[in-house]
């Protein structure tokens, strides 16, 4: 009965979302309705939370009369995986998506309550309409509340063992918080376009929201990469898989957007471009949802294929994005900007940043959708685009981006005095020397890619560090956030360069007692024993290195799904990871073993975390809180803002 109550609650949320959509847009014209908007947003969140809680409860109580629970859970599953199984497949994960949309809507209704009626109503109205579309999709094609009555199975089919992992408990919620967070930026852009007022004040209002969404997405992607690294057993951390690309494309657009917003806020320039990027970031999130949930591209992450679902998401995508772009086409002339800047300036650097990021985005989009286009044009012939294509274009683009990034701290708005560039040149030489020396010290061999990445990384860190030191008494949180994020980029860049070029691996056939040497470290296969987990049995090996590190790779056998999983043994470290994955057991009792030595691989994720931290740090800048006070409102009414 309680499951039906949850279902009903979500149906009610659908109606509330529609009401919010209508009332929001009406209140922009007639402010009598304004007080209702926030109430509807809260009401929607409450109903969605009830629906979601009911589903979680069904999982915790192993209620296998619910089809979705029966397909994705099992009574042997530990309680925390039963909770996370709620978002382990299409239906539940989309309910989570909608719930997060509800949370964002509610947060906007609180955080933006001092904004003028017109823009407040339109933002929330747009978000309401979007969530109405999502809810309609959920309820009509993929309800997680369907029952298997009267024939409820006695036991569930179990959660896919790949997903029985800490990374997968937190990865989807964070990723969705990012995806859906871009709906806020999207709604801000649509609201501003309808109202014809896309100015510095508008940019300042939408910046914190965009930053937070972007930070969530950054952490979500990093977590997914980390999960793939230790769970898939190949030791790779990025595969250019269509679904990875699906999360990476909104990130690229979002990164371009937060930079473009800076110009719009500070200089009133790039206005229509900013609006377009805000629309693009969320559109790409929706495109990602389409790719993952329609089965249109083959991928390890893809959910079950259902033509009806794919068509629905495509229709949703066409309506939301087509609608927003039509509004853009009609209204963009009202927001044209006429700002001037010359020569070498921050505006120019940010323009270059946007150009490079958009080219990179187009490149990834092309590589991701090419198999689809090829198939459509040749009538069914299949092809696939692999990592070599992506690396060939993406790596040089990021190196160029890094070069310009190193110039950021010296650049000024409008025009930069050339004298400022000299210090930067000195550091460039220093960084170049270190970049050439460090990889040599690390691996004994010279690799161009690693040298370039390290040199660029050190250059960025030096230049940014020096600037932070120079401004130590006068810096703002916003500026500090940017610095931290840029250093994060440099850290990730160095990690990627070094780990790609200096990783070593060896495949060996080993029995207990055998030893193998890799990169100066000897690995001894010390023991093999059988252990029992809650819902699996595993062969657990013990490896000891001559440096005293112990690693425990496992081969797990999950009984319910008859599935075998490789659990890598990893000795994580700041400087290097030692990584062992068990292959197959050979008839003579020995094992296929893959041992990897991966220097600086942690830096990739550390860099991503720094970037996200920088994004959030910038949001804590007091100037965003001032926007709710009188000054923000004065600007909103169109009086000139004092230049800062």
């Amino acid at each position: 009965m309680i499951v039906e109550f949850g279902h009903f609650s979500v149906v009610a949320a659908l109606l509330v979302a529609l009401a919010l959509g209508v009332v929001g847009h009406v209140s922009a014209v007639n402010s009598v309705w304004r007080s209702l908007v926030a109430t509807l947003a809260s009401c929607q969140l409450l109903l969605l939370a009830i629906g979601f809680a009911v589903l979680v409860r069904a999982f915790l109580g192993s209620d296998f009369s619910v089809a979705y629970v029966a397909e994705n859970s099992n009574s042997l599953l530990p309680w925390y995986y039963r909770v996370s199984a709620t978002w382990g497949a299409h239906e539940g994960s989309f309910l989570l998506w909608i719930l997060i949309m509800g949370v964002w809507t509610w947060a906007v209704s609180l955080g933006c309550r001092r904004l003028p009626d017109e823009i407040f109503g339109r933002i929330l109205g747009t978000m309401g309409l979007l969530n109405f579309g999502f809810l309609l999709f959920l309820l009509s094609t993929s309800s997680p509340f369907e029952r298997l009555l009267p024939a409820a199975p006695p036991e569930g089919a179990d959660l896919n063992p790949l997903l029985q992992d800490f990374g997968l408990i937190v990865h989807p919620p964070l990723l969705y918080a990012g995806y859906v967070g871009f709906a806020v930026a999207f709604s801000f852009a649509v609201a501003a376009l309808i109202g014809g007022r896309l100015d510095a004040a508008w940019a300042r209002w939408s910046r914190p929201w965009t930053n937070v969404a972007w930070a969530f997405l950054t952490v979500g992607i990093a977590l997914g990469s980390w999960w793939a690294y230790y769970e898939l057993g190949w030791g790779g951390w990025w595969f250019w898989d269509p679904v990875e690309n699906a999360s990476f494309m909104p990130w690229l657009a979002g990164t371009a957007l937060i930079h473009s917003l800076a110009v719009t806020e500070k200089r009133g320039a790039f206005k229509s471009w900013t609006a377009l990027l805000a629309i693009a970031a969320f559109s790409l999130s929706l495109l990602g949802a389409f790719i993952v949930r329609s089965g249109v591209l083959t991928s390890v992450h893809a959910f079950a294929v259902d033509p009806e679902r794919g068509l629905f998401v495509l229709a949703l995508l066409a309506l939301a994005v087509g609608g927003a772009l039509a509004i853009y086409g009609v209204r963009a002339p009202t927001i044209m900007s006429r700002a001037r800047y010359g020569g070498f300036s921050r505006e120019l650097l940010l323009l270059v940043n946007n150009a490079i990021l958009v080219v990179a985005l187009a490149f990834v989009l092309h590589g991701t959708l090419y198999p689809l286009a090829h198939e459509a044009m040749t009538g069914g012939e299949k092809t696939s685009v692999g990592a070599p294509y992506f690396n060939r274009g993406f790596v040089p683009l990021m190196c160029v981006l890094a070069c310009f990034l190193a110039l950021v701290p010296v650049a000024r708005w409008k025009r930069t005095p050339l004298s400022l560039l000299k210090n930067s040149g000195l550091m460039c030489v220093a960084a170049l020397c270190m970049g050439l020396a460090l990889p040599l010290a690390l691996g004994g061999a010279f690799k161009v890619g690693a040298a370039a990445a390290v040199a660029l990384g050190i250059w960025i860190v030096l230049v940014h560090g020096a600037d932070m030191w120079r401004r130590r008494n006068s810096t703002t949180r916003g500026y500090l956030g940017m610095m931290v994020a840029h250093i994060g980029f440099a850290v990730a860049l160095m990690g990627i360069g070094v780990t790609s070029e200096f990783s070593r691996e060896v495949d060996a056939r080993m029995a207990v007692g055998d030893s193998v040497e890799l990169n100066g470290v000897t690995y001894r296969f010390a023991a093999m024993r059988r252990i029992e987990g809650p819902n699996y049995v595993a062969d657990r090996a013990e490896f000891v290195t001559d440096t005293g590190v112990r690693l425990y790779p496992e081969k797990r056998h999950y009984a319910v799904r008859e599935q075998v999983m490789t659990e890598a043994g990893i000795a994580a470290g700041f400087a290097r990871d030692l990584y062992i994955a068990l292959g197959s057991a050979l008839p003579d009792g020995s094992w296929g073993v893959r041992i990897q030595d991966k220097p600086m691989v942690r830096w990739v994720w550390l860099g991503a975390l720094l970037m996200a931290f920088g994004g959030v740090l910038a949001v804590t800048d007091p100037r965003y809180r001032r926007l709710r006070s009188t000054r923000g409102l004065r600007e909103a009414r169109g009086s000139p803002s004092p230049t800062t």
Partner: protein
Amino acid sequence: MNRARLFIPMAVFAVLACFLFLGFTLRDPHELPSALIDRPFPDFDLPILGKPGARVTRADLVGQRRLVNVWATWCPTCLAEHGELSRIANETGLSIIGINYKDDPSEASRWLARHGDPYDFNIEDLSGDFGVELGVYGAPETFLLDAGGTIRYKRVGDVNEDIWRDELQPAIAALEALR
């Protein structure tokens, strides 16, 4: 200011949406088999399961009518159809070649030892790359090859008694009639 220029993003998006729609409708699983039928079985060079060092190529499949069955130990439906495949191998003498798809070779050998082995031999496709070339959606899938190595029939899903009687047997009879 040329107003039409402002609609360029929308036009780009419209083209993209059309491609998505086309690609999406082409992916209809019911349409796919027709794309492979009457085409030669793709070239490959892969190891044989359980025989380290031995490799097999497309040439080894030619010369005889065969079923090629894509299976894996992680696939419950494969186990469900295993009995029917064994019956076909025993009673009709039709050659069945297995493609062990995205699997663990030692698990696969154990699985065959436990459930019986109706296959002449098994092609090892650990990475699943060959499966991509064959347009495999998921295991099990079964192909009927004529003596020339051309695909004459494809089944997505399990082979059971009904499928054997209503689809596979008539397809084999049709091949017989051609000769």
